[in-house]
């Protein structure tokens, strides 16, 4: 009988498997856990930094192949697990302490599809197995309640006066739209915007979340200022259409996040092209790829391009975003790919960002 294989030999063999996003081997990243050896049978967990990892199946296969090659191994079983990495905390541990990553979804202009993208990304991340929350901070036009079919719902609060988010489609939802009767157009003024957003960030019982997506109002106004000052955002995603007018303002949003040192995970180009449902031919109505120019200019990746799809509109109006309503459609697939890219960029950013600074100063007067 062949001599039993050692844990060290397995780890050595697994060093050839590299995570393409983090650009390091899975062993030094600490992804390999709970190795069990039962004579020729080897099993272990592969613990990734996000369940939405776009290459998890490839990684799993790579692991199996690498270990199977070892002499004396007859059987390999790899179980995929995930533990979402947290943003490096930064002084303000009191704000959203149970939320691992707070991601702002921003745009320069309204109407570019920011809310639609946010809703579908949230669901795609949730489908991958992550715990997801969505906070709609769009004071000008909160549309999340409509998209999830929860318009007019009333919020509840806990005994200690914390607001409880709604549960819809498996994610936790909160919208500025829940605070006002949606027939009355409310005009929020600066100080009120500040107050409401601060409450949303500090007085909500989100529970434990892997990702909290913030649907920001368009532009770079009071709401953005309050958010970037109140919470240490993990990252920002910029949505734009390919038209020049949208790109100009997207650039402004990007520069704003850069100024306040929020990592920009990437740009998503929405309504990028029109794919004919019958023949699959792609028509580029606007100049596709306009976002790439900004990406190159600021060294920010393009996370994906979403086609114009009338089904997006219908599903949005019907209260069930397309990722859930038509999960097998090409558009749903594209959203899932983009969600994977966002999650992967988030993991990379958390790994490379500096450790939390220590800001605690108790001033001593002598």
């Amino acid at each position, binding site marked *: 009988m062949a001599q039993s294989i050692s844990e060290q030999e397995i780890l050595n063999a697994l060093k050839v498997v590299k995570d393409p996003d983090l650009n390091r081997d899975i062993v030094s990243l600490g992804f390999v856990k709970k190795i069990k050896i039962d004579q020729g049978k080897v099993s272990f967990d592969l613990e990734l930094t996000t369940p939405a990892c776009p290459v998890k199946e490839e990684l799993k296969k790579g692991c199996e192949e690498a270990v199977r090659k070892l002499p004396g191994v007859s059987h390999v079983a790899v179980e995929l697990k995930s533990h979402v990495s947290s943003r490096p905390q*930064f002084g303000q541990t009191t704000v959203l302490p149970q939320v691992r990553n707070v991601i702002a979804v921003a745009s320069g202009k309204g109407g570019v599809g920011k809310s639609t993208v946010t809703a579908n990304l949230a669901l795609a991340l949730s489908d991958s197995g992550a715990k997801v929350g969505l906070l709609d901070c769009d004071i000008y036009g909160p549309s999340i309640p409509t998209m999830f079919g929860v318009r007019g719902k009333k919020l509840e609060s806990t005994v200690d006066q914390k607001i409880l988010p709604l549960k819809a489609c498996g994610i936790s939802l909160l919208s500025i739209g829940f605070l006002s009767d949606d027939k009355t157009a409310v005009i929020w003024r600066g100080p009120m915007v500040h107050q409401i957003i601060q409450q949303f960030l500090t007085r909500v019982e989100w529970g434990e979340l892997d990702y909290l997506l913030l649907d920001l109002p368009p532009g770079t106004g009071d709401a953005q200022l309050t958010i*970037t*000052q109140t919470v240490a955002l993990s990252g920002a995603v910029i949505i734009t259409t390919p038209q020049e007018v949208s790109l100009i303002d997207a650039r402004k949003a990007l520069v704003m996040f850069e100024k306040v040192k929020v990592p920009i995970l990437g740009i998503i180009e929405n309504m990028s092209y029109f794919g004919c449902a019958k023949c699959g031919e792609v028509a580029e109505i606007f100049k596709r790829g306009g976002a790439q120019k900004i990406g190159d200019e*600021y*060294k920010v990746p393009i996370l994906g391009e979403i086609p114009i799809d009338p089904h997006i509109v219908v599903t949005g109006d019907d209260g069930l975003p397309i990722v859930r309503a038509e999960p097998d459609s090409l558009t749903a697939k594209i959203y899932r790919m983009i969600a994977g890219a966002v999650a992967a960029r988030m993991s990379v950013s958390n790994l*490379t960002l*500096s450790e939390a600074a220590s*800001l605690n*100063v108790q*001033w001593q007067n002598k």
Partner: protein
Amino acid sequence: MAEQINEVVEKIFQAGERALGVRWKDGHESSYEIRDLRLKCPCATCVDEWTGEKRINEKQIPADVHPIQIEGVGRYGIRIRWSDSHATGIYTFEWLRSHCPCGRCSRQLKN
């Protein structure tokens, strides 16, 4: 986008009786005399947003002015609550680094 390492803070601390210290990721250490920091408060009440003109009356700032509380702001700076009850100033890390009073930095600024 890479972080700018000379604007990344590792630690903020009290450096002696009247100075606030900042240790930067690149190893540099800055020390700011605290009344001087109060006088240079960059907020809109203290500095005219349009002209950049100082609105602060130095004589009205007590000699023993000191921080009561220091808290992080987002990812990019600190807010200092002062003993003269002024609390609107955000000192960004970028600002702090570019105002490092040490000999080396001030020489670099002049050149």
